[in-house]
């Protein structure tokens, strides 16, 4: 059956489909905002055939924003045994720099503001345009990027190092933070990511680091960043630091500001005159008194101390396990992941690899409630939707309270399921509209999707990641909008 379909597809002009418009289903040229982007081939595909979520689907659910048609089949073909195939897929995703992502980058290229350099150039744009393009680029990559694990980790770190774009100059500075801090280091090492974040103009603004000045010995430092550095970014709230440590860290980090002059606009600079050069003790370690420009060494000392603290390994491991395993992560997995983090000095890839091979990760399936962005992206990916990621689509994130870069407190969007469970109404509405082609700028090709899967039951298996139940299939057929119904169904809300 598969063979026949494939042969028929080729006869029907599959080769043409790879390079250009293919038949009546291809997007109309005039509506195609990505001139020059070749239309993708959309061949038939084999959906998962198990009665419950198999390992391949599970890994797709967790490491990506959802399976696209054919992805399950592609992974299985990587090796003879499913376990080996999945291991190869994990390796592939752990090395995003080796994945060709031209198609997604092509789509993101239209967001020109995001390429500004040096940082001062961002100030030439309207904040509303910057916010819009950054948001649209984020959602575009979640849907279309082949470097899916990277995108998942970019969201993870964006919450971990949350910056609300609407605070003060963050309007102009967050796009650079997203590009040069979060994206650049998302799959690198934690110490480098942390150091880049600590010197990010947006972070210095959001948590008032740039206001942290000590001119005279009696000046009290601004401890906002120091507190969140310990509480949220590294050790965690019960990580064993004291109020005294917060104050001492704040003193160490005093004197960093953002340059204003003609040629250094936006550069992060150390000013000895604003730094507290006296000796300090942080988490039991002595920081010697330092004069003048030497004071900048405090920064390196502090970042080294907090990044290497055992509480930091546990804190990051716990959050990763929460993201990838369960809202209440199992202790054994946290131990393993924290161990890998410590042994590799915070190498993010190694830490993730250890996580993905724990029994707890492998065995806990279908129990993570999708956050709204994950839900939207997974629906669009599952249906091979073509979208310009315009306002009608992005507005669903606003309605579900999950606009990127707009969480109004430093701790980032909640990682557990409960706060998101009130968003069902908009999920159902979105699913119904997507199924009926009523979202402006976004469309799916129903008939073709069913034909590619083989029949409705097989398409349902693709959408749900397992064979549909009789009730699900019956409901889909009765609904008059089967794709919409399946996307709105209970199972599709979980990954």
């Amino acid at each position: 059956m598969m063979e026949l379909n494939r042969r028929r597809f080729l006869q029907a002009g599959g080769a043409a489909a790879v390079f250009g418009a293919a038949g009546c289903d291809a997007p109309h040229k005039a509506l195609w905002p990505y001139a020059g982007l070749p239309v993708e081939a959309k061949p038939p595909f084999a959906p998962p055939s198990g009665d419950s979520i198999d390992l391949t689907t599970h890994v797709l659910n967790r490491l990506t924003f959802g399976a696209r048609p054919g992805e399950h089949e592609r992974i299985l073909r990587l090796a003879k045994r499913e376990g080996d195939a999945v291991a190869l897929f994990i390796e592939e995703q752990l090395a995003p720099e080796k994945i060709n992502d031209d198609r997604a980058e092509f789509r993101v290229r239209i967001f020109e503001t995001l390429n500004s350099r040096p940082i001062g150039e961002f100030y030439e744009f309207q904040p509303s345009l910057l916010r819009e393009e950054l948001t649209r680029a984020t959602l575009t990559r979640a849907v279309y990027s082949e470097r899916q694990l990277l995108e998942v980790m970019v969201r993870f770190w964006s919450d971990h190092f949350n910056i609300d774009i609407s605070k003060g100059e963050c309007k102009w500075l967050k796009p650079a933070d997203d590009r040069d801090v979060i994206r650049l280091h998302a799959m690198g090492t934690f110490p480098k990511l942390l150091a880049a974040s600590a010197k990010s103009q947006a972070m210095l603004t959001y948590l008032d680091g740039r206001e942290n000045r000590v001119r005279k010995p009696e000046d009290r430092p601004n401890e906002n960043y120091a507190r969140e550095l310990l509480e949220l970014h590294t050790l965690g709230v019960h990580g064993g630091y004291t109020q005294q440590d917060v104050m001492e860290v704040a003193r160490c980090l005093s004197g960093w500001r953002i340059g204003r002059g003609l040629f250094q606009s936006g550069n992060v600079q150390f000013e000895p005159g604003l730094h507290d050069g006296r000796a300090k003790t942080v988490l039991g370690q002595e920081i010697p008194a330092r004069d003048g420009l030497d004071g900048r060494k405090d920064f390196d000392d502090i970042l080294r101390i907090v990044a290497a603290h055992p509480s930091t390994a546990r804190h990051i491991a716990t959050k990763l396990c929460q993201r990838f395993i369960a809202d209440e992560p199992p202790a054994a997995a946290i131990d393993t992941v924290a161990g890998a983090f410590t042994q590799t000095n915070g190498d993010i890839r190694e830490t993730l690899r250890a996580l993905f091979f724990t029994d707890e990760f492998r065995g806990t399936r279908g129990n993570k409630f999708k956050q709204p962005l994950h839900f939207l992206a997974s629906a669009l990916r599952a249906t091979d939707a073509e979208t310009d990621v315009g306002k009608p689509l992005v507005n669903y994130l606003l309605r579900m309270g999950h606009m990127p870069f707009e969480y109004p407190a430093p701790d980032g969007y909640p990682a557990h399921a409960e706060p998101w469970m009130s968003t069902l109404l908009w999920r159902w509405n979105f699913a119904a509209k997507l199924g009926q082609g009523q979202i402006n700028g976004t469309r799916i090709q129903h008939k073709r999707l069913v034909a590619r899967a083989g029949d409705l039951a097989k398409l349902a298996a693709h959408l749900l990641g397992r064979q549909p139940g009789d009730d699900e299939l019956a409901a889909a057929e009765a609904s008059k909008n089967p794709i919409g119904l399946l996307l709105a169904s209970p199972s599709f809300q979980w990954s």
Partner: protein
Amino acid sequence: MKQAKAILHGNGDLRQTLVVVFLRGAADGLALMPAVGDDDYYRARPFTAVGKTAALKLDDRFGLNPLMNALEPAVKEGALTAVHCVGSGDTTRSHFEAQDLMEHGGHTGGGWLGRFLRFREQAVAGALSAVAIGQAVPESLRGAPAATAMQSLDDFSFSGGDKFVQSLEQLYAGQTGVFGVRSRDTFNALGRIRELHAKDYSPANGADYGGDRFARELRLAAQLIKARVGVEAITVDLGGWDSHLTQGPLISPLMRRLANGLAAFRRDLGASMRQTTVVVMTEFGRRVSENSALGTDHGRGGAMFVLGGDGAEGRVIADWPGLKRDALVGPGDLPVTTDYRDVLIPVLRRHAPGADMARVFPGHKAKPLGQAAESA
């Protein structure tokens, strides 16, 4: 306990609704709420002052502009609190900066209303907990757990037909735990939205909204509140207050629209006003002295109103410095003697007694109303 019940049923029956009307462009506090008891007011505004007897009396010092007479019943029944010399710490006198600061609730990210909805006690927000009537969600709602911009009920429609909803209900019937509870809440809300669309709306108690846009938007707000779909915050804008030239003809129709709209809304809601509070605010007030073009320029302290259930309001709050030159700030502006956040805090406390105001207004040192604030 009451709150928990409302959440369980998801119908918003017991929820309170806060309506925030933002007068964009900086409305002139001395036009809305003239200082008819202060002779210096007449010296500062020789051509545009409101006559002492013409104003609707609030107390010995202040009246309401007679163009706002539609609010007379609200004043008489103790449903309107009027605040003078109120504003934020913004000294730029820039509309954009001042609106931003006021809507963020301080030098911080996100909006005060968004943070209130996200961080109040038992913060279970329904899908329709915050509605911005207009094209876009305002800054004040940034970070809300749910926020929908709507211009008409159509923006609120559920596109799935009966068959779709029935099929969905079958699949969700077996769901348990919090997920099951929330899904049943959602079906309830869905039912109410569908009812809302099914019948034409006619305002109650003979309320007459008139045909202007602001009135239509308040009518929509009333319709949503009465449909009990769980709306907890609604924002509405009324723009056009930037009256540098010929202030009278510019803002007279706006004052009339503001008062007529609010009066009709209050009448339409009737007993539901007990669970509803309307706050009217603007980014800053205007210069005390009128300019040569019979307009007024950007100032500092302005006016603010709170409309609530009968007897719940009915105060005049004004730490009034007088209008002598040395009492004014900058180029001749009323100082800000009451911080707008101190007006909002008691309102928010009524709506959610356990809300942590330090999270809603980070960095703000709250002062009980009526006590003098430091002039910023």
